[in-house]
C-alpha cells in the first residue's frame, strides 16, 4: 500500500512538473477553460437565482385573478360582476384592483400605476410610522405571515401624490418632495407630488411601479367609477382552485380567470427562455473551446510523444503513462472548473452579474437593481462538471493511451538506425 501511495505521489509530482514545463500552452488552455466554466456557471446561477426570486415574490399573489375579455383582449371589469363572483360556492373573498400602464415620453419608459388597498399605519417603538402595502389584494394574505410585495417608510398615498419605485426614481432622477407631471387621458396636465419611495427589497418586480390614489388613477386614465382593472378571488380550499376557476368561466363567459400557478409558470418560462438564449449564444464560445481543447489535449506534440517513448523505454508501464496523463487532464480541468465556478459565484452574487444584467433581466428602460440571494444547487454543479471536466479528462487520456501502447523502441528508433 505504501509503495502504491508513493508511486501515485511520484506520478503526480512528475505530472505537475510536466505541466510547468509547458507553461504557456497549459496556462492559455487553463484560462480559456476557466472562462468557459465561468460563463456557463454565471448563466446557470443567475437564471436560477432570478427564477427563485420571482417565485418567492409571487408566492402570495392572489389565487385567481379574473379579467374581462372583449374581442380577445383584456378589458375593464364591471364592479357589478363582483356579486356574481361572491355567490360562487368555494369563493372565500373577492377584491378589486386598479392598475395600468403609463408611457412617460420624457424618459421613454412605461410605468405601472397601481392603486394600493387601504392599509393600516403601524406606529413603531421609535415613533416612526410605517405602512406595509400588499399590492395583490388577496384577502387571505391579511392573516398569513408572508413577505410583503413592498413597503414604504410611513409614506401615505394622499390625493395629489404618488409613491414611486426605485427604477422610476433613477430614470427621472427624482426623489420625495419633487413633482411628477402626468398628461391625463383628456390632455389635461396633472402634477403629482412624490410622497416616498418603495423599498428596494423586491425591486425585481416593483422597479417600475408607482402607487397612486383611486381618484387620481381614474382622473389620469378616465376610468368611470363602475369599472376596475380586474378582480382577485381567494378560495376556501386551495385544492379547489381549478374547480372554482371553471365555475367563474361558466358564470362570467366574457371573463378569463388566471390561476396563480399559471403566472408562476409564465415567469419560469420567460427566465428559462432568457437563460436558454444566453446559453445558445454562449454555445458558440463553448464549441470553439471544445475544438481548441480537443486539439491541444488530444494532439500530442512530437515532444510529448518522444517523452512517452522515453518513459516507456526506461521502464514505465502503459498504465503509468495513462495515469500521468489522467492527472494532467484532471489537474487542469478541476482547477479551472473550481476557479470558474468561484468567479461565477462572485460575479453573480456579489457584482449582481454585471456582465449579463441587460440580457437576462430584460426591462428595457427601467432596469431593476436586483441583488440575487446566494444559492447554488448540487444539480447545477454536477451538470457543469459533466459538461466540462469529464470530456476534457477523457480527451487527454485517449490519445496518450494510443501513444503509450506503441513499442518503446520508438524512442531509440528516432535516433538509431
Amino acid at each position, binding site marked *: 500500500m*505504501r*509503495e*502504491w*501511495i*508513493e*508511486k501515485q*505521489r*511520484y*506520478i503526480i509530482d*512528475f505530472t505537475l*512538473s510536466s505541466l*510547468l*514545463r509547458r507553461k504557456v500552452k497549459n496556462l492559455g488552455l487553463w484560462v480559456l477553460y476557466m472562462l468557459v466554466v465561468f460563463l456557463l456557471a454565471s448563466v446557470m446561477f443567475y437564471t436560477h437565482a432570478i427564477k427563485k426570486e420571482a417565485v418567492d415574490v409571487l408566492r402570495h399573489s392572489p389565487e385567481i385573478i379574473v379579467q374581462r375579455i372583449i374581442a380577445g383582449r383584456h378589458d375593464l371589469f364591471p364592479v357589478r360582476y363582483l356579486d356574481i363572483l361572491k355567490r360562487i360556492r368555494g369563493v372565500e373573498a373577492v377584491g378589486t384592483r386598479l392598475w395600468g400602464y403609463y408611457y412617460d415620453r420624457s424618459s421613454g419608459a412605461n410605468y405601472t400605476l397601481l392603486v394600493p388597498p387601504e392599509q393600516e399605519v403601524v406606529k413603531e417603538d421609535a415613533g416612526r410610522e410605517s405602512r406595509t402595502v400588499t399590492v395583490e389584494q388577496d384577502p387571505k394574505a391579511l392573516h398569513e405571515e408572508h413577505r410583503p410585495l413592498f413597503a414604504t417608510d410611513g409614506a401615505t398615498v394622499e390625493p395629489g401624490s404618488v409613491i414611486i419605485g426605485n427604477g422610476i426614481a433613477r430614470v427621472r432622477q427624482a426623489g420625495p418632495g419633487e413633482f411628477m407631471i402626468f398628461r391625463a387621458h383628456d390632455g389635461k396636465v396633472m402634477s403629482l407630488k412624490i410622497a416616498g419611495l418603495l423599498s428596494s427589497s423586491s425591486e425585481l418586480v416593483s422597479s417600475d411601479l408607482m402607487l397612486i390614489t383611486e381618484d387620481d388613477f381614474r382622473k389620469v386614465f378616465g376610468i368611470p367609477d363602475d369599472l376596475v382593472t380586474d378582480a382577485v378571488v381567494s378560495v376556501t380550499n386551495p385544492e379547489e382552485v381549478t374547480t372554482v376557476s371553471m365555475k367563474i368561466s361558466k358564470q362570467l363567459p366574457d371573463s378569463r380567470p388566471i390561476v396563480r400557478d399559471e403566472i408562476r409558470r409564465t415567469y419560469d418560462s420567460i427566465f428559462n427562455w432568457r437563460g436558454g438564449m444566453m446559453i445558445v449564444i454562449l454555445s458558440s464560445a463553448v464549441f470553439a473551446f471544445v475544438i481548441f481543447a480537443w486539439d491541444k489535449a488530444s494532439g500530442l506534440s512530437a515532444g510529448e510523444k*518522444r*517523452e512517452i*517513448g*522515453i*518513459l*516507456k*523505454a*526506461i*521502464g*514505465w*508501464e*502503459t*498504465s*503509468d503513462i495513462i495515469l500521468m496523463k489522467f492527472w494532467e487532464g484532471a489537474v487542469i480541468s478541476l482547477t479551472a472548473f473550481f476557479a470558474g465556478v468561484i468567479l461565477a459565484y462572485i460575479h453573480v452574487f456579489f457584482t449582481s452579474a454585471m456582465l449579463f444584467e441587460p440580457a437576462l433581466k430584460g426591462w428595457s428602460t427601467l432596469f431593476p437593481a436586483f441583488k440575487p440571494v446566494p444559492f447554488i444547487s448540487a444539480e447545477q454543479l454536477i451538470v457543469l462538471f459533466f459538461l466540462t471536466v469529464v470530456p476534457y479528462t477523457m480527451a487527454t487520456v485517449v490519445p496518450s493511451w494510443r501513444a503509450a501502447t506503441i*513499442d*518503446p*523502441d520508438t*524512442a*531509440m*528508433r*528516432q*535516433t*538509431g*538506425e
Partner: protein
Amino acid sequence: MIELVNVKKVFNAGRPSEYSALNGISLNIEENKVTVLTGPSGSGKTTLLSIIGCMSRPTAGRVKMRGREITSLPERFLTDVRRKSFGFIFQQHNLINGITALENVMLPAYPLGERRSALKERATRYLGQLNLQDKASSQIEWLSGGEAQRVGIVRALINNPATIIADEPTAHLDTKLSHRFMEIVENFKAEGRTVLITSHDPLVYKSSTVDRVIKLRDGQIEE
C-alpha cells in the same frame, strides 16, 4: 545468459514498404561480459538491441533470459523484466528537458514506489560516482554533451540492472570522453554486470575492455 533463437524482425509487414531488419539471428550473450554489436548503418544493430532489451518483440523466433522465454510475455511482465534487468544508455541521451539531472536519474524508479529519501540518496550517490554531484539540481538543457551522457548512464544504473544496453554511446562524444565512457564500462564489468553495446566506432569495438564483437550486415551475423 541471453539466448536468441532464429530471431526475425519485419517492419510494415504486408505493405509495399515492407522491410526485413533481422533475418534469423541466433546468438548467445554471456553474462558479465562486454559484447559489441557492430556493422554499417541499416545492418540491424539497434533493432536487435531493442529486442534483447524487451523494447520490441521479434516477428519470429525466441528470446530467452536465463533459460526463461520472454518473447511471449504480456506487455506488463515484459515491462517489469525491462525495468529490473536492463539499463539503457541512448545515443542522443533521451533525457527529459525542463527537469533536473537528479529527477531524470530517478525517473525509472518512480513506478516502483520506492521511498523517496532512499531513492534520492542512491541517485545522488551514483551522480557523485560520475563526478556529477554539482550538476544534480541543474536542468538537463544546461549540461554539456558529456555531462548529459553521464546523466544518461546514471539513469541506466538507478534500478541496479544486471545488464546495461548502450546504443551508439560514443557517437556524439569526442575522443577523450569516449575513453572516459569505456572506463565506465570497465567498471560495470568489474561490478559483475553484462554490457551490450552497438557501435561502429573502432575506439569501442577495439577496446581491450570488450570481450566479444559481433558483426552484423543486412540483418544477419557476419562470420
